[in-house]
């Protein structure tokens, strides 16, 4: 206060023209008025929590926005060995979680992931992140769960062997997803990268057949991710007759290059993704295809976009129809007898149960019948110590089974059957196994947000990622954004293959974003909870108490001597990357 001096103007000439203080006001430390204190804190964007594979979605989109495409791919690879696969087949719950969906339309995250993986630096292989542990891990099954676990375990320094019953690795990614959605070459590239870490993949080796469970006991830990391959039966007459296939059989045969003669009319029974994929493959074999589903469109478990595309390709879908018996002629399929159903009360899945309507039977001519009403796991090879329930391996949230050192994931252990969930479970298993083998800690704080997947990068930081504040694991909601700073902008749609070209074979249907479109789409991201240095806080601070950090450094400094704690910076932050707390 000693700097304050009193000036008395004695004449009119001495009085200044302007009403401006004669000295600086720096002595006036208005920070003493403050009882609330602003601060910067990055939080969790809802897409990151929404990704079952635990990707840093916001982070890779930000890198695309900066045209750092290879870095975007590298960031994805920190959590997920399959960005090129996921960029094609993921059902993208991140987009459902995206806050922008409540503003105009969610970000095209799936297409951006595909774009990042298309820009992967050729020949670059992943690096190990921990020294060799001297421990050995066996993985049963080379689907997305098994291979993801293998990838992370190998990066964490464990000697990892994957046993695969089929001829080639990939599980349902290879044998269940047709090439028009996921070309094998794309899958092979990502599997080769896993092999490059020293992972051994032993194909044509079925546990319980080629090797016994006991043979695996020399390993320090086992991860079981055998998937679901047993086709559920319709339980009707003539189901074993020639011309009846399961969905997985049809899809697998096509992948293996077996000739399939489907005839003029293929009937599909079922409403899941296998049913839709089977139908679209049959269409590509030149057959007319009709799908019967026993509930209505609302209850159909297949991804809506896939159903839409299948119908565009010529699939006829009939709802509320259930099979009664398969009709045979000369030892092979000649048709199917169907009847109508109506929806009754909801069943345990919450969906309304289909009930047959008596007297509504009708016959449909068919040359081939494909049944795709669900699959279940073949778990006969497991010892009793590994508990199962309803043909599913029982696991806790860290993928541990009832048997020590045995972990399980993927479709064989999960309720949700899809690639992203399987990847998430494989990653969780890798972290849990590493934690067991190295005696380190895996805690819930390494989970992204409240309901997300585990984050490997957080796990590698030994759980300290959120030491700064528990709020940093807070998932930013739409209402926390200041949407005055965003303008509506339509979502960019990636092109699809022309209908004439796609039906000639198995060419990939979904085309990648061109660069300008990817940049436009990345630009739509709100970056919920993550500071982008947009300068709003800096511009709005009425006390000029906020300054940019020195060059090359990220973020801002707040001069607490002068910050009055008015909170304008926090309010004007478009993306909730700031907070206010009570002055201590």
């Amino acid at each position: 206060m000693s700097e304050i001096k009193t000036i008395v103007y004695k004449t009119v000439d001495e009085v200044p023209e302007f009403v401006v203080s004669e000295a600086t006001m720096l002595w006036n430390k208005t920070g003493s008025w403050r009882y609330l204190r602003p601060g910067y804190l990055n939080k969790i964007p809802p897409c990151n929590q929404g990704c079952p594979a635990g990707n840093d979605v916001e982070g890779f989109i930000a890198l695309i926005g900066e045209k750092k495409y290879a870095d975007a791919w590298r960031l994805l690879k920190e959590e997920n060995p399959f960005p090129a696969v996921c960029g094609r087949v993921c059902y993208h719950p991140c987009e459902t979680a995206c806050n922008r969906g409540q503003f105009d339309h969610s970000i095209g995250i799936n297409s951006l992931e595909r774009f990042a993986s298309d820009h992967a630096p050729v020949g670059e292989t992943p690096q190990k992140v921990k020294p060799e542990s001297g421990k050995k891990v066996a993985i049963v099954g080379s689907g997305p769960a098994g291979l993801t676990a293998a990838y992370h375990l190998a990066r964490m320094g464990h000697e990892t062997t994957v046993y695969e019953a089929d001829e080639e690795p990939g599980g349902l990614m290879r044998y269940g997803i047709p090439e028009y959605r996921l070309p094998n070459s794309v899958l092979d590239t990502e599997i080769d990268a896993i092999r490059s870490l020293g992972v051994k993949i032993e194909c044509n080796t079925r546990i319980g057949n080629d090797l016994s469970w006991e043979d695996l006991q020399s390993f320090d830990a086992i991860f079981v991710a055998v998937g679901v391959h047993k086709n559920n039966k319709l339980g009707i007459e003539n189901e074993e007759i020639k011309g009846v296939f399961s969905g997985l059989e049809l899809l697998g045969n096509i992948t293996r290059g077996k000739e399939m003669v489907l005839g003029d009319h293929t009937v599909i029974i079922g409403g899941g993704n296998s049913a839709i994929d089977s139908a679209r493959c049959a269409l590509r074999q030149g057959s007319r295809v009709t799908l019967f589903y026993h509930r209505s469109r609302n209850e159909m478990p297949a991804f809506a976009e896939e159903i839409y595309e299948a119908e565009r390709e010529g699939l006829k879908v009939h709802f509320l129809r259930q099979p009664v018996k398969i009709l045979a002629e000369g030892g092979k399929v000649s048709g199917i007898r169907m009847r109508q159903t109506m929806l009754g009360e909801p069943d345990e899945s919450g969906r309304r149960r289909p009930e047959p309507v008596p007297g509504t039977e009708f016959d449909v001519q068919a040359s081939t019948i494909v049944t795709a009403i669900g699959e279940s796991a073949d778990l006969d090879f497991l010892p009793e110590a590994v508990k199962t329930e309803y043909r599913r391996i029982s696991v806790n949230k860290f993928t541990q089974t009832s048997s020590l050192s045995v972990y399980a994931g993927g479709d064989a252990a999960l309720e949700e059957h899809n690639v992203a969930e399987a990847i998430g479970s494989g990653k969780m298993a890798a972290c849990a196994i590493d934690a067991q083998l190295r005696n380190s800690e895996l805690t819930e704080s390494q989970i992204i947000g409240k309901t997300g997947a585990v984050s490997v990068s957080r796990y590698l930081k030994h759980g300290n990622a959120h030491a700064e504040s528990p709020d940093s694991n807070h998932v930013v909601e739409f209402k926390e954004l200041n949407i005055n700073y965003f303008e509506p902008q339509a979502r960019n749609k990636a092109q699809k293959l022309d209908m004439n070209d796609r039906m000639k074979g198995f060419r990939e249907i979904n085309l990648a974003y061109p660069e300008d479109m990817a940049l436009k789409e990345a630009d739509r991201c709100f970056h919920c909870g993550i500071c982008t240095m947009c300068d709003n806080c800096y511009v709005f601070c009425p006390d000029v108490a906020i300054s940019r950090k020195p060059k090359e450094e990220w973020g801002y400094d707040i001069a607490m001597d002068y910050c009055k704690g008015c909170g304008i910076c926090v309010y004007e932050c478009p993306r909730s990357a700031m907070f206010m707390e009570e002055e201590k």
Partner: protein
Amino acid sequence: MKKVLMGNHAASWGARLSKVKMIAAYPITPQTHIVEELSEMCGDGSLDAKFLKVESEHSAMASVISSQSTGVRSFTATSANGLALMHELLHWAAGARLPIVMVNVNRALAPGWNIWVDQGDSLSQRDTGWVQLYVEDNQEVLDSVIQGYRIAEQVNLPVMICYDAFILSHTYEPVDIPDQDLVDKWLPGYQPEHYLNPEKPSAFNGLVMPDNYMEIRYKLHMAHERAKSVTNEVGQSFGETFGRYYGAVEAVECDDAEMVIAISSSATSPARLVIRELRDKGMKIGLLKMRMFRPFPTEEVRAVLKGKSKAVVIDRNCSWGKGGIFADEIKGAISNQEDMPAIYSYITGLGGRSITPDLIHEIVTEVESGEPPAELSVWKGLKQ
């Protein structure tokens, strides 16, 4: 470069040539084209300025007050009710001594709703501390915006350039657009004495107690006194560079005149025609174009009117309950002076009604008849 421009685009070009750095405006008929054109100039990069869209004229003025406070040359434009909405902040801009230039397109105030010419909007802001210039044609619009910044920045006062709705704003005339290099030399970049500067933080426009307030306001008034001569100097200097001379007033054929018509804005042009015709017939009549209204050019008016027998003041405005505003101001300027003419005050052309040469002839004939001036302003052109 000559272009055929509407008055509003002449104003936009004036701002562009002045290299304003910040424009904040809210659209209102008949001003809209000005900012529309400026937004396009900002959009295509021909003008390197920030264009701020705001939700009202009050915010437009607040924004240019803010930007000008940071030492940045700022521009806005408005009309009628928009200007009225700015009222409080007009005082602020002048009291803070910010050299903002604003264009006001003179338009009648509602009700009844009327979008046509009337000077009442800006004249009712006469005590806000703004310099006011009333200009005659589109060339003068462009030239006056540029001169406005020279005047404003020399005396630290805001300047309002006023011109007539539709008669100028929407009418196309050939306009000479001066060379940018020449304008840059004549109007260098703005160098403020005081501005918001984080390197040298100061408190601006804070509390001034009774012991200093009068002095501060006296200085504001003195700045206006200086603005008269500055306006004449700037108009002269502009003429020397660009070939078009301006001043606080313009006297046409007044030296030997017995009668003088005092008039402002676009109505000056028909008055020029009338005095030429009457001169041709041998009448000793002159014209006093009132370009500057605030500060009021008292000395210039006295010098022109001294020794004349009659002065006719034609007002396109009315101070309700008093009469023609220019007439009243001129009466005030010559009071207590020897040898001054009788003042005949006429009100006409309100709300866009035309002031035609015939009408001016009629007024002159009436004044010439020998009757003494009426007690009150005479409303000319009323329906009989």
